């Protein structure tokens, strides 16, 4: 690698955001010059103004709250069940043999396809949405947990045995922490999937939340508002990932130190 001077490094770190800014300015120009139909794609400045109004008027909170509620509840249920079952499947061969074919059949199914049948059983309410999102969260976390648990160093297991720790303590104090880096990687993937599924579920069967709002605004031709909410969703996705990465880095700080 060639030596990079500090000033050059600073320049490089501004390059990515710079590209973004240039694109937004180009879009502004294109819409104002009439190269793009401003009814379909309003100028970014108009979207920004509406966004500002939505935030300052406080009308952001109700839809955001609903979406976040579904997301958090469904994500927690999916993760807890997946980690629990993943530890059992990773640790006990008979359980793995029993359930692995079922998992392999259900896993590749695109989860939005489950929404119509789930609506038949569970209706259009929160139960259906939480079930669908939990299922989407469940599989990536499960697969990673099984892998993480299988990868536990047998020496650490023997250490727990020589010091007379119980089987429950072995799972809790040795197996689960060892598997944590892979479990968290699965949880990070699942977080993105969860947001997608919440929004899709709200669009298909919603009476509130950001997904419902976006499709409702589109149907009533309030295009500027629609874009404002798409931007809110983008920021939400970015923020969730950012928060997760920070928590992850803290939780498994030892993992990076070990690899290095």
């Amino acid at each position, binding site marked *: 690698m060639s030596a990079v001077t500090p000033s050059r490094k600073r320049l490089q770190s501004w390059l990515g955001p710079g590209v973004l800014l240039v694109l937004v300015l180009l879009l502004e120009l294109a819409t104002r010059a009439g190269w793009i139909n401003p009814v379909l794609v309003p100028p970014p400045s108009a979207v920004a103004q509406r966004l500002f109004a939505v935030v300052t008027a406080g009308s952001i909170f109700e839809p955001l709250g609903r979406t976040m509620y579904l997301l958090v509840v469904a994500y927690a249920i999916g993760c807890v069940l997946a980690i629990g079952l993943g530890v059992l499947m990773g640790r006990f061969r008979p359980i793995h043999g029993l359930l692995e074919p079922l998992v392999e059949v259900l896993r590749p199914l695109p989860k939005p396809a489950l929404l119509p049948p789930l609506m038949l059983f569970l209706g259009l309410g929160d139960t259906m949405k939480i079930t669908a999102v939990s299922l989407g969260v469940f599989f990536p976390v499960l697969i990673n947990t099984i892998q993480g648990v299988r990868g536990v*160093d047998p*020496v*650490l297991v*023997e*250490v727990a*045995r*020589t*010091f*007379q*720790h*119980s089987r429950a*303590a072995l799972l809790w*104090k*040795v197996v689960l*922490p060892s598997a*944590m880096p892979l479990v968290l990687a699965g949880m990070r993937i699942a977080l993105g999937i969860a947001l997608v599924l919440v929004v899709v579920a709200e669009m298909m069967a919603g009476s509130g939340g950001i997904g419902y709002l976006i499709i409702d605004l589109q149907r009533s031709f309030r295009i500027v508002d629609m874009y404002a909410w798409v931007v809110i969703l983008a920021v939400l996705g970015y923020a969730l990932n950012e928060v997760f990465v920070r928590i992850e880095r803290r939780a*498994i700080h*030892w*993992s990076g*130190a*070990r690899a*290095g």
Partner: protein
Amino acid sequence: MDARVNSPAYLALSGVGKTFGSGAGQTEALGEIELAVREGEFLAIVGPSGCGKSTLLQIAAGLAQATRGTVQFHGEEVTAPPPGIVYLFQQYGRSLFPWRTVLDNVAFAVEHLPGMSRAKARASSRLYLDMVGLGDFAGHYPAQLSGGMQQRVTIARALAAQPRVLLMDEPFSSVDALTRLELHALVQDLWRKHGFTAVLVTHDADEAIFLADRIAVLSARPSRVVRMLETGLPRPRDRLETPLMPRYLELRHELLAMLLGKAP
């Protein structure tokens, strides 16, 4: 005669054999091991590489099962790790929990015992960390320590459990030569101070002679105990002086001749 000699051995392996695999691909690692460990002694087990020394120790610890024969500790048959016996692993780097601090790694040995609170476990662990000279590193993580320091942590952890028997599987084989000498002195001191029974598996003749009261020599696969040497060197042994003693040199010659297959 000493009463202890007539009493059943403290930790006794009788007719212990281990065969890996089956059919044409099977390997007989341990032939028929007869070994009686005396209470409070320091016993070394040496043998050519691949003779199944580590397997033997794991069987004694209840961490592996013998194909034939029995292990008895205090007259009770060993089938799972019994209380009172602690196994010190060769792979110190892999036997520490990377997510626990050094102090909490040591506390792992005691935190689950009845009547032990977190604070009590930590306080007692701190004593053992001080004993191995790592009192200042309690808050560090294993990855921040050198190999020799990591092995000290595993020694502190093993002693914190207050074992009656400490089984050591080539614990000094992957630290540098000077650190190894320091660890020899440390282990000798701790053994003298705490009075546990020590069994050390090694392929290093000097290590065995310096530390042990008796040395069991194993043959190549399928291994048996072919010789039992009494070292008879005075204690405390000194890193500089002891190796100059005629008895030390005689033992070294005898042991190396056996290990190299040049014994008369």
